């Protein structure tokens, strides 16, 4: 007999497993192969011997699974006829167990957990109906981070949570705490103020922002917006821009005289990356949080447009009265502010800015300065091109690439399949245990239907897990690249993908309580639950009861 070495131990283990899954009538042969293993010369030859033998037994196991009758033992004696029903088919059990274990092993990989989380995003709005009515939905993960930030006195984490917090008062409180800990984060006031628009703390925050960054137009736009919102609340919105209160005009004048318009997006991204890296946060929705990335206050564009019109009209009046210098100053203030806004926001003001360039060109011609007139005309043409480019970019962003759409579809489908197969397996397991009235493996006697459904579900579970991982993997790499190096080249693709994963299957838009698809899925869920309940009740009622005979 050969000494026991690693290859030989593996060979023996392999054959024992093969014997375990093999049908009963091949056990003798399996044990025969196993006993011969002791006499095979050479450790690697022994492993090859075991591999061959295990292959033979596995083939019989699969055949027994596909053709259950092909390996059924014939009952030859009376004692065998009345013997206990054979235990649950080991092969099927082994297949189911292997698939389930393999699927569970996927969950050990952080990328897969992330992918699974993303695949569940489509159900977020279904389970958070209150959000559609404007109620803040608690986010346990964010709440835990807030707690950790307060415990650690970490201003950056406080800022991270304050920007994402769905509850206004909590967001404002956290922002205050972050700035209190680190005054360099005063810009956070602007980000939170842009998101929430109007709250009492703004009276304190705006002066702090003006002191922090005196040349920035953003605090003035925030002030103007607060005045607008107060007017809406008091239902006293002026019909003409001339009727706006002096405070509003002062705020807008301050914005138009500022030398820059900084939304602090770069600082925010930098903090986000540091927090994500430091706390090892890998939730892509938290990492990108696109919906929070507003540049200007919601009234900012309309206020700017109105004030630009006011300045142009004022310039026209001055021009008519012969004050060409005063008129030019008014026109130039609008042109300068248009340049400050950058291509994205100036798109919404393009009509006013174009009119402004026209006025400046006409004024230059009147003064005999043809070079300036040609310059303003060229600026107007550039503005048109920039607007077209911006529009094309938005269209492309909103559609997203076909690859991200398909991958999002695969992620949603595989996530759904994962849940469906898991539920089926669970139901089968409960059914089999209820039938056997025991949780002991040896006493479980599943019906052929339970075996087929259980085995199919387990295989489905494994396949769905693999598809989910493969579909999500490229986006995980894009996210990691963004977090670790700040490379934003893949962010639009990632954002499109994440956006598409939030659209539930069967619809092309987000779910809401007013959406017919929401009602459809709700009805399907209720009907499935009812069907399951009826099936269980019927099974309990029709289950054959053991009768005692004497």
């Amino acid at each position, binding site marked *: *007999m050969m000494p026991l070495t690693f290859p030989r131990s593996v060979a023996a283990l392999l054959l024992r497993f093969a014997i375990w899954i093999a049908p009963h009538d*091949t056990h003798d*042969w399996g044990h025969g*192969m196993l006993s*011969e293993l002791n006499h095979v010369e050479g450790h690697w030859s022994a492993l090859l011997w075991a591999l*061959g033998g295990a292959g*033979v037994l596995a083939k019989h196991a699969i055949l027994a699974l596909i053709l259950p009758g092909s390996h059924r033992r014939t009952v030859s004696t009376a004692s065998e006829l009345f013997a206990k029903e054979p235990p649950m088919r080991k092969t099927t059990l082994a297949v189911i167990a292997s698939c389930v274990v393999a699927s569970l092993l996927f969950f050990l990989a952080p990328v897969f957990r992330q992918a699974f989380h993303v695949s569940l995003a489509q159900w977020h709005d279904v389970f958070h109906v209150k959000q559609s009515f404007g109620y803040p939905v608690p986010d346990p993960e964010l709440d835990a981070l807030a707690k950790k930030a307060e415990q650690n006195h970490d201003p950056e984490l406080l800022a991270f949570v304050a920007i994402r917090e769905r509850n206004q008062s909590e967001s404002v409180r956290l922002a205050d705490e972050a700035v209190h800990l680190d005054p360099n984060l005063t810009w956070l006031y602007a980000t939170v103020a842009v998101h929430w628009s109007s709250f009492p703390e703004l009276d304190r925050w705006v002066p702090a922002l003006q002191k922090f960054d005196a040349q920035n137009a953003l605090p003035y736009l925030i002030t103007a917006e607060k005045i607008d919102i107060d007017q809406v609340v008091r239902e006293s919105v002026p019909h003409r821009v001339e009727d706006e209160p002096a405070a509003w005009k002062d705020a807008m004048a301050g914005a138009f005289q500022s030398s820059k318009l900084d939304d602090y997006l770069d600082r925010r991204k930098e903090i986000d990356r540091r927090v994500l890296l430091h706390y090892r946060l890998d939730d892509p929705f938290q990492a990108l949080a696109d919906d929070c990335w507003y540049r200007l206050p919601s009234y900012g564009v309309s206020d700017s447009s109105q004030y630009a019109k006011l300045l142009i009209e004022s310039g026209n009046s001055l021009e008519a009265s012969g004050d060409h210098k005063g008129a030019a100053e008014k026109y130039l203030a609008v042109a300068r502010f248009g340049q400050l806004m950058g291509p994205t926001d100036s798109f919404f003001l393009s009509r006013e800015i174009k009119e402004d360039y026209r006025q400046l060109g006409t004024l230059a011609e009147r003064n005999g300065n043809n070079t300036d007139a040609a310059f303003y005309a060229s600026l107007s043409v550039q503005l048109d091109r920039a607007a077209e480019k911006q529009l094309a970019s938005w269209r492309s962003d909103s559609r997203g690439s076909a690859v991200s759409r398909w991958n999002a579809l695969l992620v949603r489908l595989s996530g759904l399949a994962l849940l469906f197969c898991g539920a089926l397996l669970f139901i089968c397991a409960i059914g089999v245990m209820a039938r056997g009235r025991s949780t002991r493996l040896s006493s479980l006697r599943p019906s052929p239907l339970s075996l087929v459904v259980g085995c199919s579900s387990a295989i489905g579970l494994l396949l769905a897990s693999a598809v989910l991982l493969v579909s999500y993997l490229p986006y995980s790499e894009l996210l990691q690249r963004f977090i670790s190096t700040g490379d934003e080249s893949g962010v639009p693709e990632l954002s499109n993908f994440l956006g598409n994963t939030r659209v539930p299957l069967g619809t092309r838009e987000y779910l809401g309580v007013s959406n017919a698809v929401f009602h459809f899925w709700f009805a399907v869920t209720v009907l499935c639950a009812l069907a399951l309940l009826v099936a269980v009740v019927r099974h309990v009622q029709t289950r054959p009861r053991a009768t005692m005979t004497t």
Partner: protein
Amino acid sequence: MKTPRLSPQTLRVLESFIERPTAWRYGYELSRETGLKSGTLYPILMRLAKYSLLETKWVTTEDGVPPRHTYRLTPNGVELVRSTFATQRATLKARRPAFSGGRA
């Protein structure tokens, strides 16, 4: 009597058995004699046993060593092998050219 498909590998196994028709043979021994791997040999043995051409027995060789599975042709098996080989020889003879220059 139903017989299994006699592939060249099966014939090789049968040839090995017929050399000592009454002896009990071990799986590894057969594998070495025929040059067949366990993955090929055992399905053949199982098929022969299914058609009752082969009988099996567990034997204990020495103390502390697990018993070994041994195989031997049944009388039916021996008869089938003899008739098969006889037929094969006859076929070969019939196919051989009359003046091949070989043995008479």
